[in-house]
């Protein structure tokens, strides 16, 4: 029944791991024509499904067994929940009569995942199953997207019954608002017409709503610069003259100052996260704030909002553009140009000197022409990716923003590659993070998923080391990784290709080599150990107070 429902939902790939409580499900998979990717850890299965979902916009599907299988999903579910990624997860559960008896491999995954799912179900009757499946897919991928979990006891998997998949869903307590309030939209239009120093602040909502073209149109028509969050990077072309790049803790100097000087800030599908705002009561102090979001609970949660617009970003922007008139802001743009010149993103790669991480990432950008699908792990390399890779296409970045999950990027790249088989997929990884799910090299080789893992190998948990350097007087506590492993050998042990670059001149060569190989490749970039990410807003400081470099 589950498999039939998945077919009705046009699911083409499932990520999962078998076990006692899902034997029946896996038996049905045996001759079903849906692809199943067996990862080497359930956490990786969720991240892979999440990468698939972010890269395609379609919900990712995960199977896992009861007990430890289900609890291994937790980090992945929380990651997807924080970043509003649509997933449908199906876990086996012990047979209904055994529930609550501490049976073998019983875990209350319904209870455990209550706070990290958009909704979850424990199926108690076979008759409910088709409806629940239908609802799960609908809930996951509508409104503000998110993970939905279905816990399915073994006896219900075994039971036979007539399968009638409902055509429609009726969930009385769930009615997302898609159309924005016209009065508020008009107020936003007026505010934009009056503004002298407007900034658009775009988040992941623009990506999930597919509103990138409308955002571009709005920016160009009103000559308004656009800054994005980490989640929103692929929503606006990074090399567009109106792009300010990312804002926030490791955002560009000019994006943060522009927001600080703005008289109008239009937040679109973003949620004023503390990594973006810094000290919240000093954020965009001089600006009128328009907030467009599909989730009413986000509006007014962290910051006072002058013009609240609840609705789907795409629909709201469509409406907004109907009456928005063309405008120029030569002075404002000149001011931004001035800011850009006064603190550009720079690094100085000596041809024979130590390899710099920024240079490696910029080289990946150059070699892929900004056309690759990128996933990242979490740490310095993630922030350098945000700064130096200029994203061009929608859904070309999958990175754990809200939860900041190390171990996300590599499995996510497998899912992204399966969802976008024709494209080049790079995972930009840290040497620490990669080791959290490096066992997935077996999956990559097993299914020949040709991802390129670029390890920015600084021999440190670099981001933590940077904080210890700056805020704890260089007392480096448990951050060194110099004892390896040898990532080239590791790749080879799994049957993948491993390549290494230690000098600037080798970087482009190995990247090209990797792209020419039709299978998974691990690239070990030996970079300078104590390089830091700048600019940096110290925690709880206003975003205009940035540390701009090591000398400060």
């Amino acid at each position, binding site marked *: 029944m589950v498999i039939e429902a998945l077919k009705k939902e046009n699911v083409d790939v499932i990520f999962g791991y078998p076990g006692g409580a899902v034997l029946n499900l896996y038996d049905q998979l045996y001759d079903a024509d849906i692809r199943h990717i067996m990862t080497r850890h359930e956490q990786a299965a969720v991240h892979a499904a999440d990468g698939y979902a972010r890269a395609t916009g379609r919900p990712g599907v995960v199977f896992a067994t009861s007990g430890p299988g289900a609890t291994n999903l937790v980090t992945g579910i929380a990651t997807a929940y924080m970043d509003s990624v649509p997933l449908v997860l199906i876990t086996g559960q012990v047979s209904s009569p055994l529930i609550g008896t501490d049976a073998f491999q019983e875990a209350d995954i*319904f*209870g455990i995942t*209550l*706070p990290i799912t*958009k*909704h979850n179900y*424990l199926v*108690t009757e076979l008759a409910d199953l088709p409806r629940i499946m239908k609802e799960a897919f609908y*809930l996951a991928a509508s409104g503000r997207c998110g993970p939905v979990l279905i816990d399915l006891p073994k006896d219900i998997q075994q039971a036979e019954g007539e399968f009638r998949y409902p055509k429609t869903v009726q*969930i*009385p*307590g*769930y009615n997302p608002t898609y159309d924005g309030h016209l009065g508020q939209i008009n107020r936003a239009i007026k505010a934009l017409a009056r503004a002298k120093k407007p900034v658009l602040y775009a988040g992941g909502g623009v990506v999930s709503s597919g509103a990138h073209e409308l955002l571009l149109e709005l920016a160009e028509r009103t000559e308004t610069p656009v800054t994005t969050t980490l989640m929103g990077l692929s929503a606006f072309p990074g090399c567009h003259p109106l792009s300010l790049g990312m804002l926030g803790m490791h955002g560009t100097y000019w994006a943060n100052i522009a927001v600080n000087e703005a008289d109008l800030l239009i937040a679109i599908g973003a949620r004023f996260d503390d990594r973006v705002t810094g000290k919240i009561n000093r954020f965009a102090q001089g600006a009128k704030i328009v907030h467009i979001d599909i*989730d*009413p*609970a986000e509006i*007014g*949660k962290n910051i006072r909002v002058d013009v609240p617009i609840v609705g789907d970003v795409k629909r709201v922007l469509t409406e907004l553009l109907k009456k928005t008139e063309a405008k120029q802001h030569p002075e404002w743009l000149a001011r931004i140009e001035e800011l850009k010149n006064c603190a550009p993103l720079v690094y100085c790669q000596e041809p024979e000197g130590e390899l710099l991480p920024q240079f490696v990432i910029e080289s990946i950008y150059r070699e892929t022409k900004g056309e690759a699908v990128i996933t990242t792990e979490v740490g310095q390399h993630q922030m350098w990716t945000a700064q130096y890779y200029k994203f061009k296409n929608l859904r070309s970045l999958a990175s754990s923003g809200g939860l900041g999950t190390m171990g996300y990027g590599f499995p996510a790249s497998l899912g992204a590659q399966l969802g976008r088989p024709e494209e080049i997929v790079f995972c930009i990884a840290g040497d620490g993070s990669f080791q959290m799910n490096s066992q997935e090299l077996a999956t990559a080789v097993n299914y020949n998923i040709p991802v390129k893992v670029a390890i920015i190998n600084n021999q440190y948990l670099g981001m933590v080391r940077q904080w210890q350097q700056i805020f704890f007087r260089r007392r480096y506590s448990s951050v060194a990784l110099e004892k390896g492993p040898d990532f080239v050998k590791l790749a080879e042990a799994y049957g993948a290709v491993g390549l290494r670059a230690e000098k600037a001149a080798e970087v482009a060569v190995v990247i090209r080599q990797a792209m020419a190989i039709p299978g998974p490749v691990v690239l070990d970039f030996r970079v300078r150990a104590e390089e830091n990410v700048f600019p940096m807003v110290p925690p709880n400081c206003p975003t205009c107070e940035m540390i701009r470099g090591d000398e400060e």
Partner: protein
Amino acid sequence: MKYVLAVLVENKPGVLVRVAGLFARRGFNIESLAVGKTVDPAISRMTIEVEADEKTLEQVVKQLNKLINILRISNLTHEPSVNRELVMIKVKANATNRAEIQQIVETFRAKIVDVSLHSVIIEITGNEEKLEAILLLLSHYGILETVRTGKIALLRGSKVIKNGEVKENDKDVL
């Protein structure tokens, strides 16, 4: 300040946990919570009393609204409504002061529902002031145990809650 919310929820397993968990994890304070079925057995009604400032209350309501099993939330705080709570109080009592206690009970229009050699159980329904008043008085005799149902509230007159709004009654009342 204290707010009173009437929340209609689908009568499904786990709904109470969802509500309680949401309050706990977002740091909202529940003063009291009472649940029971409505005329429609598929729907339950919760009365939740929340201690919050206005901004927090807004978040409480918005976050509750995101729970899929929640149907309607209405804020009864500023609506004319009848608020009641039932309390049972076990008080130390003996032959010498039982009559005195009986008098207090009558004055408050409460009831003695159980008598033993050394104690009585008093049942009383009322709003907060009334309950606090009797509890204070009875504390002189020694309160052994109390149990409270939590506040329940209903709009006065023929007004009902429909679609989360307060409306004049028409046919289908829950």
